[in-house]
């Protein structure tokens, strides 16, 4: 499939939580941004069924620092069945009482994060005759440069908004941190091709502050 030229987007924010799937109740973030979170950021700026984003590399610009926050959360979801009954009857008492469903959960979040996402998109078979790589390339550059977005992108959770800045090819890349680390197995992305979304993992290695995703082996 046809693909775009690679783009570079600088993203930063006060906090971030790229939740490890094995620690979801009391959220603990991965040390760095996952490819799937990076994809989510790009999709918040531009996405159409005609394109699919691929993350090529993630540069870590700030040292990894942590912050812990405990919050009162609810552990319930809207019961679709009850809603349906009330909907059909036209009356009833919906609503969720926080005191009955309270859960206190701590979260271990990252703080003062900044990354450069290197990514490209490829066209999918859903592309129409009027869709072309150039069209979406121009659209993305225009949106990312002027700060436009479909929705505010976020770092893992919606309370951690992302500031983004398009880095054109002429601009020099901001320096990544000088640190190499084996980050272990990390979430690559969710595979939505089957009936249920399936997580895929990869062995992440940060080399001089940079996470190369081009030739990683992805396992589900």
């Amino acid at each position: 499939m046809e693909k775009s030229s690679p783009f570079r987007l600088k993203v930063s924010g006060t906090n971030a939580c790229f939740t490890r799937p094995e620690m979801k109740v009391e959220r603990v973030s991965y040390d760095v941004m996952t490819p799937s979170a990076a994809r989510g950021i790009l999709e918040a700026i531009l996405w159409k069924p005609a394109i699919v984003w691929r993350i090529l590399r993630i540069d870590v610009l700030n040292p990894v620092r942590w912050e812990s926050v405990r919050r009162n959360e609810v552990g319930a979801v809207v019961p679709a069945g009850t809603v349906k009954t009330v909907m059909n009857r036209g009356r009833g008492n919906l609503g969720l009482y926080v005191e009955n469903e309270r859960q206190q959960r701590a979260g271990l979040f990252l703080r003062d994060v900044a990354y450069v996402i290197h990514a490209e998109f490829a066209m999918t078979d859903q592309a129409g005759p009027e869709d072309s790589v150039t069209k979406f390339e121009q659209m993305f550059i225009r949106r990312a440069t002027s700060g436009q977005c479909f929705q505010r992108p976020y770092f893992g959770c919606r309370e951690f908004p992302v500031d983004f800045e398009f880095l054109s090819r002429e601009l020099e890349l901001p320096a990544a941190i000088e640190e190499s680390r084996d980050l272990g197995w990390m979430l690559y992305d969710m595979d939505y091709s089957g009936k249920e979304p399936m997580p895929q993992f990869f062995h992440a290695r940060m080399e001089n502050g940079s996470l190369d995703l081009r030739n990683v082996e992805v396992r589900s």
Partner: protein
Amino acid sequence: MSDPIKNRYEFVLLFDVKDGNPNGDPDAGNLPRIDPETGNGLVTDVCLKRKVRNYVGLVHGEQPPYEIYVKEKAVLNRQHERAYQAFELKPESKKLPKNEEDARKITGWMCKNFFDVRAFGAVMSTEVNAGQVRGPVQFAFGRSIDRVFTGEHSITRMAVTNEKDLEKERTMGRKFTVPYGLYRVHGFISAPLAKQTGFSEGDLELFWKSLQNMFDHDRSAARGEMAAQKLIVFKHESELGNAPAHKLFDLVTVEKNCGDAPPRSFGDYDVAVGAAPAGVERIEML
């Protein structure tokens, strides 16, 4: 109901607390939340959303279409049954599988009746993915401009709870307050997501009002005096926005003007708002 909003918005809310605890930390025995690295105070996003919900619930008496889904019992111990107006959904594409269509109906109906589902979104437990709605309104954590100090006060009660403590005559308690803190919080409203939940111009009006007035209806022994001091809204001409959000937030500067003395009132701060770039309207609501 009016049409969904057609502009992107960002907002900066400045609120302060005097001799109160704006947001307790369950990890630290209900001390005010503090960022241990910088000493600045912290107020979570969910804390503020709760207050918006309470305000809207209060103003509209918990009636659809402004009912509040996530309720606090303390505020509403009324056990009346609500009657919901059934509404006709426009027929969706027939190609969709049956249960997805169902899920859409349910989320659509919830959005229509509940203000907080429309504004903040909700997770509905249907089998299909469509059961989740993202709301257009998004809050970040609020942080204080300067370091806040926590005062610890021991207080006495001239009564005891248990019979066996009768001879003690009184019990001691503890209260934590911030003498003064000015907090700044950033928020975002996405027009494309508003379209998905039907968050309308009328809802937006109500939301701005709730930000300005929510502290006035949240008085308690713990909170002290809290007040919204400034609400600066940036309205983009277009749905997707006309300027980067962080550039707009940078236009709002808050500086201490009392030198080395600890700030003790809003007057100890100077707030300046720069001119908005082309395509963005700056609205100072408060």
